[in-house]
């Protein structure tokens, strides 16, 4: 759910995995081409000739959930260091060269992946491929400079998390939800562990994981595979493959208790009510993908927009809240969260808010799901897949994310068909598995001194669905 990145441009990707496999309304979604280099690096090309530009992304199959114990934040620390020079490109030059070429660049770290990207005129694509291939193996940063960057990251953490009660509550809720799964650790790291990270920690992580056979190249824009292949062979293709560790993830034990997290903060005026349920993801070993598709449709019905069940019940009919919705992002390797966010009215009782949410869930578990309501949701998701094509950055991100958690391109392309095949029984079965109070955390954000039984949350109308486009300025 959270990404950390070098500069805060991309914001939360939260609900994007709505299109996490979003594709086109017709048979094909993005119509990608693919090939694999001799060293094992997969390459995907998504042609889009709207403008003479490309988005070039390299996705490493490693993220914060792969960090060694006691080194939380090292994946993200390394991501920052990747901009600070190699044996051939002096400190600062990477960004200078990209900028002089009219390129916009950044990177982001998540639990399961780390990705680097540039959006740039297509005639400069060979240049950024050279630069990106170079820093895959030639990173060279001084220990002093790494310490300055560590301070930048501590500032980043304070800005994004410590000074934002809503973000602190989410962090604590994830920590409480996952008993064993590494998603319980924040991607950016715990502050005391960030403060102890060293250049050597980051370089060890780099040597372990950054290799062409553990990376995926995705290029979208004004290019095709035939043009890209020789460039990829000449750059990434020259880097030898190398053994990388297995991604052995700890899995959750059985959960047995309802959990409740309350954050009191003096700066809070508007309270919040949230619940995170443990939920299956596309990358989770043993999970049934059918359940995941069904939960995507359920998310649409329960919490997407002002005609969703939660919004209608809590905001329109009962007047308890000003915002209500849900969020589900299943492009993960481990079990993930199905999240419900409510922004109660300031004068509402949080107990009543919780009861209203529980009533909507009970209604669903009782089997109240008309076929027409389901059909309308499926139709909307099919149209969302058409909208998803209308972008340079979005399709590259969707494809990169899917491949990095072990899905196939065909899974991305067949997403609309799979959604269209979701029936009432599928949604009800998935809901009955997920909506178990002992596999959930309920969180509340309240002003200091208030009892946790009387408040409102932030106007998260449910789905922070806004696409994070390539808004680098």
């Amino acid at each position: 759910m959270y990404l950390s990145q070098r500069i805060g441009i991309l914001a939360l990707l939260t609900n994007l995995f709505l299109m996490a496999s979003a594709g086109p309304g017709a048979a094909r979604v993005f119509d990608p081409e693919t090939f694999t280099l001799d060293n094992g690096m997969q390459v995907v090309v998504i042609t889009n000739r709207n403008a003479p530009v490309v988005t070039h992304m390299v996705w490493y199959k490693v993220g914060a959930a792969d960090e060694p114990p006691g080194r939380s934040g090292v994946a993200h620390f390394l991501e920052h260091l990747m901009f600070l020079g190699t044996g051939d490109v002096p400190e600062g030059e990477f960004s200078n060269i990209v900028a002089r070429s009219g390129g916009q660049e950044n990177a982001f770290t998540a639990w399961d992946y780390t990705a680097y990207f540039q959006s740039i005129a297509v005639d400069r694509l060979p240049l950024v491929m050279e630069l990106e291939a170079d820093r895959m193996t030639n990173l060279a940063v001084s220990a002093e400079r790494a310490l300055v960057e560590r301070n930048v990251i501590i500032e980043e953490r304070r800005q994004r998390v410590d000074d934002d009660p809503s973000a602190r509550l989410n962090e604590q809720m994830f920590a409480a939800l996952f008993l064993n799964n590494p998603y319980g650790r924040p991607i950016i790291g715990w502050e005391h562990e960030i403060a102890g990270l060293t250049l050597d920690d980051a370089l060890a992580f780099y040597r372990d994981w950054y290799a062409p056979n553990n990376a995926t190249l995705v290029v979208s824009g004004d290019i095709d595979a035939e043009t890209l292949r020789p460039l990829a062979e000449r750059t990434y293709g020259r880097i030898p493959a190398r053994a990388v560790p297995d991604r052995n993830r700890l899995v959750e034990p059985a959960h047995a208790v309802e959990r409740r997290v309350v954050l009191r903060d003096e700066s809070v005026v508007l309270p919040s009510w949230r619940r995170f349920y443990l939920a299956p993801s596309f990358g989770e070993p043993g999970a049934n993908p059918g359940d995941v598709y069904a939960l995507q449709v359920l998310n649409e019905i329960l919490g997407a927009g002002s005609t969703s069940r939660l919004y209608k019940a809590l905001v329109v009919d009962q007047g308890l809240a000003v915002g209500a919705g849900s969020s589900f992002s299943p492009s993960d390797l481990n079990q993930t969260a199905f999240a419900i966010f409510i922004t109660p009215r300031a004068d509402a009782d949080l107990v009543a808010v919780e009861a209203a949410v529980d009533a909507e869930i009970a209604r669903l578990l009782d089997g109240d799901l008309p076929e027409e309501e389901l059909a309308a949701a499926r139709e909307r998701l099919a149209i969302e897949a058409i909208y998803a094509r209308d972008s340079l950055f979005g399709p590259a991100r969707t494809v990169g994310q899917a491949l990095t958690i072990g899905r196939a391109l065909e899974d991305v392309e067949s997403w609309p068909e799979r959604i269209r095949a979701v029936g009432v029984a599928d949604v009800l079965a998935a809901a009955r598995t997920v909506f178990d109070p002992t596999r959930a955390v309920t969180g509340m954000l309240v002003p200091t001194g208030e009892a946790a039984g009387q408040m409102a949350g932030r106007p998260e109308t449910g789905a922070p669905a806004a696409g994070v486009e390539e808004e680098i300025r």
Partner: protein
Amino acid sequence: MSGRIGRGPFLGAALLLLCLAVLPTRSHAIEVQRVISPGGIEAWLVESHRVPVIAMEFAFRGGSSVDPEGREGLANLASTLLDEGAGDLDAAEFQQRLTDAAIDLSFGARADAFQGSLKTVTTHADEAFGLLQLALTAPRFDADAVERMRAAVLADIQRRVAEPDWLGRRAFYDVAYEGHPYGRPLRGTAATLAAITADDLRGFVADNLVRDRLVVAVTGDITPEALAGILDEVFGALPAGGPPVAVPDTRPGAAGMTVLVERSGAQSFMMLAQPGIGRDDPDFYAAYVLNHILGGGGFTSRLTQQVREERGLTYGIFSYLANFRHSDLMLVMSSLSNDNVGEALAVIRAIWRDVAENGVSEDELADAQTFLTGSFPLQFTSTERIAGYLRRVQLENLPIDHIDRRNDLVNAVTREAVARVAARLLDAEALTVVVVGDPEADLAPDLRVPAASLAARELNDGGS
């Protein structure tokens, strides 16, 4: 290993030559057509049939700056209500019609314009334009919808008063635009929001959603002929004109003033402000390039280099030019630990003094120009973004071929022009400084206000 690339400072240039030889740029000119409906309504259109999507971005000049005294927040509240019931459809029915066709329709109030955005797949275009026409010409303002949205806006205000960057902006606009419409809160306060009636909302629509204030931009899967008919259908029934927009031109006050908004927390939010430059000023593009060099996007600006990269004082610092219709600003913003505020301020002021006196180097100018011109096409990667850009061009009174001319304007900027505009604009002593937090350094503030009292002012509903 073999992925090596040249060496030293010539690396970039050598590679560029190589690349240019490899992948010549195709011409992808964006062709903007002027469409004028039989009823005389103008729209700018970029026709593109690659994806079956149509985006329309429009605006009525005016916006929240024309909210009546005591009804601050009127334009904003109206913007939440046009799609909450119109014609024969109540709020739930209207929203359901949008949802069923996956139509994105939204409105928003800005200081100088009331804006709308519509996105639809081609197969639902008739439904989309029909609903838009209803929203603009027959909004209902039913009591339950008004109360629901009033509560939502109030919650929005309650959320914002806890945020350091909102508190900083509020404090700045208070002192810099005292007595001017730009000094008033766009969403209103709890008190003014409570005072707005359904009649006020109807009055807002009658006075402001009028054809002589309208600009329209459309992109996507639609022909000019089809669009011409749609323009009359959607906008034709609106009144021809309304009362004049009477907002005086002004310059920001509070030069050299330091305001401390006292708030506990790990970090301070810091905002520096000074007068900017008019969109029609002959040196506007010189200032635009200057701003990029000082604090524009990416990692290369002087502020990012010196405050973040060299000293690690912050995660982010940037500057930008803000052009309101009646006032121009240049702003710098950053969040940073309380301990770092004093040092960062000194670094920023030193940069301001240096550039005011010495201008910028040839390399800095050339790099800024190649970035700004080379990255320009990245704004045109989706139908919505193209339409949004064209709306802005119209609101800024720029010509229809602006997209073709813009890079030439950037490239025409000389080092002398940048030095001239830097000397004219940058004055380290005249910066207005607003800090929200608990900074360690003694800022010797001219004004000190507890965050709680700033928040309480916004939240006092004027009742009890």
